[in-house]
């Protein structure tokens, strides 16, 4: 019995009369419609018994018809391409569903996000705080599909203003009383990250006793913006979600769009996409290595890694005309060709990158002080990684082989195009995650070379003809440098997507951070946070706010001294 049959049989038995129908879409994507009675059991059965993963949970607002909640389960790490999507329709007047967080902890953030973005309510959620929206916004934004004007009318009121009106505003400031509290708040502006993020560390001396993360400060309403622009323009918006993994974002987005349109990407375009994505992975991992070096105070490593990274950026600039933000991918293919005369130039740069990378690996691998800072720090065991749904190098460093490139091949990653191996390390600590990335660098250089060789033999079209979307919904995935990237696009047949749902890798890994921080010191906090390679512009396409400041816990950040505390 194949896995697909087993899953279907199990679900049929489990759901009984609530099994309202199924459909196969895409390549081995099973969509099952059911009622809201059995969501918890399904989640428990799939994640615990069948060893599936809950990737994300999307809620799509259909106005008066109600809200579709889609649970995206993936089995691709067991059987290639195989996904199961369980759909539940909840009525618009009483949009309630039981929470599956107890059964599958991965769902926690997704459920919180969907509660923010749509009117759906997950009853019995253990932590139903607003994830993205300011706590001052009692209603949701996307339910504004009913009355958009009203929602937009509220936009000129910032959380600050609203809080002042409600009389809850406490100027964020440093007071002696708060300094006594053993609550250390990292962020939103903290040198640890160039982006804004916000951690609450409860400390005893230097030891972290408890931790809480509030990602945010980065919300740009991108999922809403997607709904107001055509598929081809959306590619450029996807490019701007994250500045580090922009090719991966567009690739994932276009994987979904091309599936919707049932467009086959030409072979040469596939290789070019893969080349760009792999170059980007090299750039991202080198960037990460530098930043991680900086986080443990190794400025020289930062400089050396970033010196090497410049060669990759040069190669990317040669191809696309821009160091970052390449705008290469279009619906159905790529925009510019890679002419033959620049191929040797790229090969030359790759050669430099390879030798420099080996040097960097030598330096880090045997450096006594660096190893002391990385070994046995931020341990994430395999079971926790699985139950919390870690992705990317974080999971691979915890001895769990998941990689979208291998499990759900897209672009030219399939075995018919390229040969390579997934890097897995069993160390489970920050050093293992470092090692995964370092080894992936070499794999990526090799992949780039294979792509360049393939470009020499392939020719033909760069872009396939674009059609109208004729599927209802599609899932697009890609392996970003940080892990699995997930797009779910719902189409209504027009040239504008009806709804776009995105789950970025950092989103998942960030949710595990509080768990990983516990038991280490403040000095370790930066490298633990850094070891998952958090990318908050990815994570916070949507917003988060710190809770209404109560009297006791106030922000104690670098960024906090109110004007009235100034003295000239």
């Amino acid at each position: 019995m194949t896995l697909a049959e087993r899953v279907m049989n199990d679900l049929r038995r489990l759901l009984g009369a609530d099994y309202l129908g199924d459909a196969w879409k895409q390549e081995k994507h099973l969509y099952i419609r059911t009622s809201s009675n059995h969501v918890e059991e399904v989640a428990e059965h799939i994640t615990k018994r069948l060893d599936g993963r809950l990737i994300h949970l999307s809620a799509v607002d259909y106005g008066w018809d109600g809200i579709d909640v889609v649970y995206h389960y993936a089995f691709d790490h067991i059987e290639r391409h195989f996904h199961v999507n369980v759909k539940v329709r909840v009525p618009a007047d009483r949009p309630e569903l039981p929470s599956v967080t107890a059964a599958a902890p991965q769902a926690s953030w997704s459920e919180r996000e969907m509660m923010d973005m749509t009117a759906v309510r997950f009853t019995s959620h253990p932590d139903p705080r607003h994830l993205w929206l300011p706590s001052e916004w009692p209603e949701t934004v996307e339910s504004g599909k009913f009355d958009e004007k009203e929602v937009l009318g509220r936009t000129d009121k910032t959380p600050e203003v609203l809080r002042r009106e409600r009389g809850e505003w406490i100027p964020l400031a440093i007071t002696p009383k708060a300094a006594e509290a053993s609550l250390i708040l990292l962020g939103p502006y903290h040198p640890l990250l160039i982006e804004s993020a916000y951690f609450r560390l409860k400390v005893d001396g230097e030891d972290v006793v408890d931790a809480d993360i509030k990602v945010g400060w980065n919300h740009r309403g991108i999922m809403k913006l997607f709904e107001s622009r055509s598929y081809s323009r959306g590619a450029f918006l996807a490019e701007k979600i994250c500045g580090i993994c922009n090719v991966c974002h567009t690739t994932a987005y276009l994987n979904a769009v091309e599936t919707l349109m049932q467009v086959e990407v030409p072979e040469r375009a596939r290789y070019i996409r893969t080349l760009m994505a792999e170059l980007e992975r090299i750039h991202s991992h080198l960037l990460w290595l530098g930043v991680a070096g900086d986080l443990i105070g190794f400025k020289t490593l930062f400089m050396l890694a970033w010196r090497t990274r410049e060669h990759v950026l040069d190669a990317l600039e040669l191809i696309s005309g821009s160091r970052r933000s390449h705008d290469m991918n279009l619906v159905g293919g790529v925009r510019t060709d890679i002419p033959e005369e620049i191929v040797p130039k790229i090969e030359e740069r790759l050669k430099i990158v390879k030798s420099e990378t080996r040097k960097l690996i030598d330096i880090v691998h045997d450096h006594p002080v660096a190893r002391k800072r990385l070994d046995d720090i931020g341990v994430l065991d395999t079971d926790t990684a699985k139950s919390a749904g870690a992705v990317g190098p974080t999971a691979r460093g915890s001895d769990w082989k998941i990689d979208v490139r291998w499990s759900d091949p897209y672009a030219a990653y399939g075995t018919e195009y390229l040969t390579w191996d997934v890097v897995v390390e069993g160390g489970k600590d920050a050093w293992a995650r470092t090692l995964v990335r370092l080894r992936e660098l070499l794999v990526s250089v090799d992949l780039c070379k294979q792509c360049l060789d393939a470009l020499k033999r392939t020719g033909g079209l760069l872009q396939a003809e674009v059609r109208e979307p004729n599927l209802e919904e599609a899932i697009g995935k890609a392996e970003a440098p940080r892990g699995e990237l997930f797009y779910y696009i719902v189409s209504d047949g027009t040239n504008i997507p009806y709804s776009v749902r995105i789950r970025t890798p950092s989103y998942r890994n960030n949710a595990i951070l509080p768990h990983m921080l516990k038991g280490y010191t403040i000095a370790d906090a930066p490298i633990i946070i850094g070891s998952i390679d958090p990318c908050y512009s990815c994570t916070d396409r949507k917003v988060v706010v710190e809770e209404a400041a109560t009297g006791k816990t106030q922000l104690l950040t670098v960024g906090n001294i109110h004007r009235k505390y100034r003295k000239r």
Partner: protein
Amino acid sequence: MSELDLTLKQKVRTYSPWVFHAHAGSCNNCDIEIAAIFAPRFDVERLGIQLKNNPRHADILLVTGPVPKQSKPMLRRVYDQVPNPKVVLVVGTCAMTGGIYNFDDNRPNYALAGPVGSVIPVDVSVPGCPPKPEAIIQGLVMAVRRLAMR
């Protein structure tokens, strides 16, 4: 006013500008390009420019991003903490106007509090998405000159 007529005060300001980088919801492109100007290829320490992690030590405030509503009070506060004289350098398209996130002025993005210019006074802007590091250095040099004249 030529550079030769500067007083000592203005000269030392030109010679040693310290930079604080405030991230206000940008997509990371500009942030890593800003980090790149401190890396070996573009090393701006040649000019005496140093990246400080503390607004209280800074002279120039580098701001990136379209300023989400959530970040607005924080950005304002960071600006207040930079001791006078100070200069604000805005890097990137979305920090200048909202860029791709503020696609249509008639239907403003619900999540954004407007460009940086509407939150804090801006002195120098560097368009680009992201600007090349050379362009950021050019902007920094302009900002340094303005700093000296403050």
